[in-house]
């Protein structure tokens, strides 16, 4: 048997709206279950979705302007289906596989977000060079 090629899924999470965050949760948990190494890099509007205050907010999540008419219907169906929230999927992904959650240091400075403001499931604060290094040789998505 030859050496098995490392399977990797890396996502640059740029958008902070629920329509973009759900696929991040779904893809990363499916990948983790399948034995992929998963790297999630939260930057710009994505970074705002991994603060403790955002995760624990009781307000309905924001949705992209283009899909806002569909938003309430989708959220209602997700509740009826007892579908997990995106960050619960990321947490499940961390339970089944090798998943790292990174926060972008520059964006933190832009928004005045401190390390202690970030959700518990964030592993580290890094820059673009670290992300590129972790993502090398795998599938990379920009969402």
């Amino acid at each position, binding site marked *: 048997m030859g050496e098995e090629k490392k399977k990797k899924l890396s996502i640059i999470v740029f958008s902070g709206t629920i329509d973009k965050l759900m696929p991040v949760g779904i893809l990363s948990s*499916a990948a983790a279950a399948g034995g*992929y190494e998963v790297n999630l890099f939260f930057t710009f509007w994505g970074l705002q979705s991994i603060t403790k205050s955002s995760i624990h907010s009781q307000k309905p999540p924001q949705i992209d302007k283009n899909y806002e008419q569909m938003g309430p219907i989708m959220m209602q169906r997700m509740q009826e289906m007892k*579908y997990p929230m995106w960050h619960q999927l990321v947490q499940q992904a961390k339970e089944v596989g090798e998943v790292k959650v990174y926060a972008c240091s520059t964006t933190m400075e832009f928004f005045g977000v401190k390390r202690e403001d970030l959700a518990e499931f964030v592993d580290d604060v890094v820059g673009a060079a670290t992300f590129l290094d972790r993502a090398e040789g795998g599938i990379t998505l920009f969402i």
Partner: protein
Amino acid sequence: MTQEAKISKTLDARGMYCPGPVLETAKAIKQIQVGEVLEVLATDPAAKPDIEAWARRTGHQILDIQQQGEATRILIKRMK
């Protein structure tokens, strides 16, 4: 009809949607020994292709897939 394998554990993933059945299958396979068989029941229409793809990726062996009414029944042998 394949010969019925001895089932070590059953995962009832009925009513769960993608990626639920795959996630729970990945958890459940770790709870049996290598060589033992996991039975998965799922109603998600994507369960068959998804668990087949998952098994190919993770190196586990699908022994049998059957449709039983609304549920898909998948037997998976833990290979490593």
